[in-house]
């Protein structure tokens, strides 16, 4: 080894270093910087002192020293009638209640309402991952789980936003969140996503995440139907750096409610550390303050679980666990949980999946507070933990575990139709208001686009102008209803009006409210979680279960049988008579499985059986051997087929070939399972391999020594790709293995 290489790690380590997980940052715990998930030495011991009905000490801090967050929680956030009882409950006792099916949600929530932030944090820090999941299943507010999508693109293109919003609605997302790379585009994005949403499905909630005042205005004017970007922080200084106070946030919450618009707040462990303001506290304790404050200001729900700082939390030991504990804390405060799983927290597919899986399995009011329904590069929040790249994965995982993650398979034709309609509606409405004109080419590109890169060059200034007009013209959601109707879209007009009219009833202001597609409100009030152990709580309805199960990739034996039906291939084979024992010294018999020439036309590698056979026979010919074809009808076992062929062959050497492509070389004096060479991985056996098989069989027949075949290099999940097909192909073979005598076949091949 050269001197320069002395310090180089060994190859195994270099290989490990090159894996994607090592792009992630991992931090040593550092409580001083707030880089610790649980239990910083600075975290207070829980305490609550009430004098004359007034909190005078909370979590080790006297009233005179309360910061603005303490003050708001102490004055508004605690149920003082329960507090004495709740603060006296042992941490371990409460932790056990959380997983005890005999203790109902209502009791847990009642006690939590009297617990200070530090007090509620303590038992949650004791829960192991599986216990967190059980508790989430029991304590989330709404019985029916749901999911939220991000709908954005790099160009703020309205037609693409609308098409993607309709797409997200078709996939089952019940909340759509958009945002902008260019702040002034916000009114246009809000309008376009709302238009797409009403094309996609009834009752889809829409928000546009921007600066607080603008977001409020968009809500009040009816361009969006909920708000979420109302951020809370766990320390006074960081809170004020965010240009708000608990009182201003509470006023915002009331402002939204005053116009009948749903809102939730946002927080998340690691945010304070990221901003250099954790003051030595653990992430989980600071988040406990945020969640207590969320309840105190009267928000109905919280988006947390790291959010923008998820990767900060994930960089420290138990950080990912603490994100799940944050979600559970929201549920225990009797609030809607919009459970993070949004910001991409790792370059590793395994780590990001491992982060989200517990939430999906346990169920939450919203599994993701932003599943990127668009491609990563178009996600203007930054890539989400799950994106368009992962929708099929997510649907498969729902099906694997039989759980409802809020998504469904969208019919391929429906998607095309909905995307077109969403783009047309948006073009027409923008034209109606004189906001912008879009060409036919632009529309066609938006319908077909998998992302904004497929749009070509667009007029981004036109978007800015449209947004400016929306903002300054004074138009409202009702004007959009009118425009939809007059542009010839009465159904969409009705759906948008229904969303606006829902403000009058105010039922969707209640905790964890969503609409189903019949515009029923599902919330803590109308659809309360009633989990009390196995056999209780939410299970998908039979219809919903079918929706979860029927992913578009599933195939039946019948589907595969149809795909294998190839009369031209089958006609190449004809029966000559009963198979006889040969005597020629150089004769090799190729034993074929029952379905060859009858029901299975292609091997798993995609060759027709005849194409494989051509090569085998050519290999035998190269070695000067004579070949005969025999179809075995009493076994589908490759060893038996090969052995039977060998016993019919003059040379005593036989080849076994199953219709699916698996092959071997056999000799008449061996037992069925012992063979000379096995070509077992049918999907990877190509023409050259079949040629080699023929050559080697020929050499065996002549008593020469062949060079055995090697398996090719492969890192594919061969079994995942092919086993379902194998099951179907084996079933087809077995049905044809009727026990009849082996048949001599003639074959009209092309060489």
């Amino acid at each position, binding site marked *: 080894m050269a001197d320069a290489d002395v310090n180089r790690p060994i190859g195994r380590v270099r290989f490990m270093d090159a894996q994607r997980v090592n792009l992630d940052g991992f931090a040593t715990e550092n409580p001083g910087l707030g880089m610790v998930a649980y239990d910083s030495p600075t975290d207070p011991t829980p305490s609550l002192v009430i004098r004359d009905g007034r909190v005078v000490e909370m979590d080790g801090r006297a009233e005179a020293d309360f910061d603005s967050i303490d003050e708001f929680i102490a004055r508004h956030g605690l149920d003082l009638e329960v507090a004495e009882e709740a603060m006296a409950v042992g941490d371990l006792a409460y932790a056990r209640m959380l997983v005890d099916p005999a203790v109902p949600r209502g009791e847990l929530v009642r006690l939590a309402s009297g617990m200070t932030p530090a007090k509620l944090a303590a038992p949650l820090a004791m829960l192991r991952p599986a216990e967190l999941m059980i508790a989430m299943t029991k304590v989330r507010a709404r019985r029916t789980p749901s999911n939220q999508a991000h709908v954005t693109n790099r160009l703020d293109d309205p037609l693409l936003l609308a098409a993607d919003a309709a797409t997200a609605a078709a996939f089952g997302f019940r909340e759509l969140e958009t945002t902008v790379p260019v702040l002034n585009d916000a009114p246009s994005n809000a309008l376009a996503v709302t238009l797409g949403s009403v094309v996609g499905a009834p009752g889809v909630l829409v928000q546009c995440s921007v600066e607080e*005042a603008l977001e409020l205005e968009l809500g009040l004017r009816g361009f969006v139907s909920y708000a979420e970007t109302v951020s809370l922080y766990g320390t006074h200084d960081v809170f004020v750096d965010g240009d708000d106070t608990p009182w201003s946030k509470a006023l915002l919450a009331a402002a939204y409610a*005053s116009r009948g618009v749903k809102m939730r707040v946002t927080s998340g462990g690691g945010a304070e550390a990221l901003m250099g303001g954790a003051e030595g506290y653990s992430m989980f304790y600071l988040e406990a303050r945020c969640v207590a404050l969320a309840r105190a200001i009267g928000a109905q729900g919280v988006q947390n679980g790291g959010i923008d700082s998820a990767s900060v939390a994930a960089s420290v030991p138990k950080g990912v666990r603490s994100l799940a504990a944050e979600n559970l804390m929201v549920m225990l405060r*009797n609030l809607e949980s919009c459970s993070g799983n949004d910001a991409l927290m790792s370059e590793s597919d395994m780590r990001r999946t491992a982060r989200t899986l517990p939430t999906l399995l346990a169920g939450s009011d919203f599994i993701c507070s932003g599943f990127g329904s668009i491609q990563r590069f178009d996600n203007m929040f930054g890539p989400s933990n799950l994106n368009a790249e992962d929708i099929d994965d997510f649907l498969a995982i729902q099906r694997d575990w039989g759980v409802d993650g809020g998504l469904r398979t969208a019919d391929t034709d429906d998607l095309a139709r909905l995307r077109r309609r969403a783009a047309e509606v948006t073009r027409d409405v923008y034209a109606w208001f004189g906001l912008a004109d879009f060409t036919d080419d632009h529309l066609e590109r938006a319908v077909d686009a998998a992302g904004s890169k497929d749009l070509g060059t667009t007029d981004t200034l036109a978007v800015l102008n449209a947004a400016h007009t929306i903002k300054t013209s004074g138009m409202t959601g009702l004007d959009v209803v009118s425009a939809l109707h007059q542009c010839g879209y009465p159904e969409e007009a009705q759906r948008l009006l229904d969303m*606006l009219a829902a403000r009058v009833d105010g039922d969707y202001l209640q905790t964890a409210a969503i609409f189903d597609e019949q515009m029923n409100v599902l919330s803590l009030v109308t659809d309360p979680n009633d989990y009390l152990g196995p056999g209780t709580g939410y299970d998908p309805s039979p219809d919903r279960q079918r929706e979860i199960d029927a992913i578009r990739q599933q195939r039946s034996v019948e589907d595969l049988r149809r795909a294998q039906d190839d009369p031209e291939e089958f006609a190449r084979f004809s029966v000559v008579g009963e198979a006889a024992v040969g005597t020629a010294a150089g004769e090799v018999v190729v034993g074929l499985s029952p379905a060859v020439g009858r029901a299975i036309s292609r091997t798993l590698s995609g060759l027709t059986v005849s194409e494989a056979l051509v090569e085998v026979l050519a290999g035998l010919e190269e070695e000067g051997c004579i070949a005969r074809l025999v179809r075995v009808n009493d076994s589908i076992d490759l060893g038996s087929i090969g052995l039977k062929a060998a016993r019919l062959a003059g040379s005593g050497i036989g080849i076994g070939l199953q219709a699916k492509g698996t092959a071997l070389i056999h000799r008449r004096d061996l037992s069925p399972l012992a063979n000379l060479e096995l070509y077992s991985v049918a999907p990877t056996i190509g023409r050259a391999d079949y040629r080699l098989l023929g050559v080697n069989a020929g050499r065996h027949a002549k008593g020469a020594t062949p060079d055995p075949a090697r398996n090719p290099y492969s890192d594919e999940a061969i079994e995942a790709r092919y086993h379902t097909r194998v099951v179907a192909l084996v079933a087809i073979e077995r049905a044809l293995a009727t026990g009849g005598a082996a048949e001599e076949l003639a074959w009209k091949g092309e060489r």
Partner: protein
Amino acid sequence: MSDRNSLAWSGREASELSVDGVVDGVLGPDDIRIGPDTLRRQADVARAHGNPQLASNFERAAELAAFEESEILALYEMLRPRRATAEQLRAKADELEGREAPICAAFLREAAAVYERTGLTA
């Protein structure tokens, strides 16, 4: 849960809303604006479902329901850090008191005191 006869700010019932009414200009923004009584009823629902804080929010909102949007935005702005003096907040509270918004008035007075103590006044 509220009953189905919620009255919009305009006094019209939610069930009377129709696309035709919107297109014909019979219906306006006040017909899709929630009324204070509905918010108070939702406060009762929230309280009955274990969330008195959400109820309080709806009660503050019931008062704000009568305010113009620009006034609400101005109130929000005033409560942000160091936008107003304690005196300005208290004066605003007095004004709210006179406009049948006693809950919001008390809320502003509370904010004024905390802002003074924690350095959040202008």
